[in-house]
C-alpha cells in the first residue's frame, strides 16, 4: 500500500490550491498544526477560507496567514484577544468573518463528516446567529436550522501516528482535531511521532486511518498567548 507519510512539511502542503477551504485544528495554544501553517504560508497560498476556532496569536498559529493577507474568509467562534493581524485585515475589509457558536461550529463540521445535510438546534435562537436562518418550534422549543461545514482540507496536529494513519492526541491538544479529520475531504496530520503499524492498541485509536490521508512528522512549535 502507498505510504501516507511524506518527508517534508513543504511537500505535505504542496498541492493545496489557492482558494481552498481549509480547517485548522487547535484551541487555547494546544493542538495547532503550527508547522503545517508555516509551510502553507511560506508557499504563498492565497484566498483561502479558514475554518478554525480562532484567528491566531499575533504571528503565531493562524496569525501569519492574516499578516501575509492569505485568508479571504474565516469561519470561527472566537478570533481571540491576540488576533491583531486578523482584526487589522477585518477592519480593512480584506477578510470577511462568519462567527459561529463554538459547539455549533463543531456540530456543523461533524454534520459534514456524518452525511447530515442540516440540523435543528436551540443554540443561537433570538441572537445574531439566527439571522437569515429558518426557524421552527420543535417539541415546544424554538430552533434554527444549521447547515454542515465542509472543507477541502484539514490541517491537524496529533501526537502519534502509525503508517496507516491511525492517530492519538495528547491531553487537551485533542480538541477540534478529530472532528476536522472526519469533516474534510483530505486530512493532513502533523505529528510528534510516527510509530509502527500495530503499536497503537485498536481500542485506543482516536482517529481511525480512514480519515487521514497524509502524515508528516514535525518538531513541536508552540506560540504563547
Amino acid at each position, binding site marked *: 500500500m502507498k505510504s501516507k507519510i511524506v518527508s517534508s512539511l513543504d511537500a505535505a502542503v504542496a498541492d493545496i490550491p489557492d482558494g481552498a477551504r481549509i480547517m485548522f485544528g487547535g484551541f487555547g495554544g494546544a*493542538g495547532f498544526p503550527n508547522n503545517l501553517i508555516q509551510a502553507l504560508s511560506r508557499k504563498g497560498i492565497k484566498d483561502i477560507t479558514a475554518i478554525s476556532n480562532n484567528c491566531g496569536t499575533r504571528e503565531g498559529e493562524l496569525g501569519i496567514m492574516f499578516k501575509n493577507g492569505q485568508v479571504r474568509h474565516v469561519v470561527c467562534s472566537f478570533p481571540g484577544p491576540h488576533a491583531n493581524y486578523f482584526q487589522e485585515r477585518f477592519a480593512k475589509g480584506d477578510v470577511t468573518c462568519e462567527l459561529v457558536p463554538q459547539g455549533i461550529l463543531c456540530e456543523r463540521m461533524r454534520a459534514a463528516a456524518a452525511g447530515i445535510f442540516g440540523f435543528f438546534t*436551540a443554540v443561537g435562537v*433570538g*441572537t445574531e446567529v439566527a439571522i437569515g436562518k429558518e426557524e421552527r418550534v420543535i417539541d415546544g422549543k424554538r430552533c434554527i436550522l444549521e447547515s454542515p461545514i465542509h472543507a477541502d482540507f484539514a490541517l491537524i496536529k496529533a501526537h502519534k501516528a502509525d503508517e496507516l494513519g491511525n492517530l492519538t492526541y495528547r491531553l487537551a491538544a485533542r*480538541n477540534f482535531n478529530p472532528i476536522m479529520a472526519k469533516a474534510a475531504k483530505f486530512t493532513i496530520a502533523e505529528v510528534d511521532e510516527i510509530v509502527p503499524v500495530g503499536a497503537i492498541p485498536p481500542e485506543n485509536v482516536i482517529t481511525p486511518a480512514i480519515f487521514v490521508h497524509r502524515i508528516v512528522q514535525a518538531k513541536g512549535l508552540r506560540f504563547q498567548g
Partner: protein
Amino acid sequence: MTEKTRLTREQIAQRAALELTDGAFVNLGWGIPNLIADYLPKNITVYFHSENGILGMGRRAKPGEEDYDLVDAMKVPVTLIPGASIFHQADAHLMSRGGHLDVAVLGGFQVSEKGDLANWKIPGSKGSGGIGGAMDIATGTKKLIVCMEHNTKEGTPKIVKQCSYPLTSLECVNTIVTDLAVIDVTPEGLVLREVAPGWTPEEVQQRTEARLILRGDVPQMKLA
C-alpha cells in the same frame, strides 16, 4: 453621593461557589466565574468541565509544572484530578448543549427579567467580536448562574427589563449573583433571594431596572 461598599469580585465568586452541590459537573466561564474554583466548600467534590475537552479539571499548574497541551478554555495550564477524562470538542459541547452539565457559571453584560443573557458583545464595539462557547453552554446547561457586577461603572443597571446588548441565549439564566444581591429567575419574575451586607432590598431595587419580587424577609448574602 458616596455609595456603600459592594462585594468584591472575589466575594461574588465566593457566594456563587455556595450554589454548587456535591458531585456536580460544572463549567466556569471567563471573568468572575473563573475565580470560583478557589472558593469551593471543603466538603464537596465538583467536576469541572472545560469546553476544549476536559472533565475533572484540577487546580492551575504551578510554575514548572505547566504542560501546554493541558490548558483550560482561557489558555491557562491546569492539572487533572483523579477520574478525569479527555474527549474532543464536539463531545465537550454535546455535554453542554445536550443538557448534561449540572451547572454553568458565566459572566454577563445584561440579564433580562425573563432570564435572557447578553454576554458576548458590547454594542458599537470595534472588531469582529467573538462568541466562543457561551451560546452552547448558556442554552443547554441544566442550571445557569450569572456572576457580574450589579451595575456598570457608570451606574447603569445590568439587570434589565429587556436586553439591549446582543443576546447570547433566551430565557436561560436561573440565578444571578452580583456585588449587591442573589436573584433567582422564576416564572413569576426575578425573586430577590439575598442582599449584600449593609444593603436593603429597596436600595438594590433602585439599582435594578427590572422589578424584583420580595418573598418575606430577604436575608444577607452568605459568604462561606
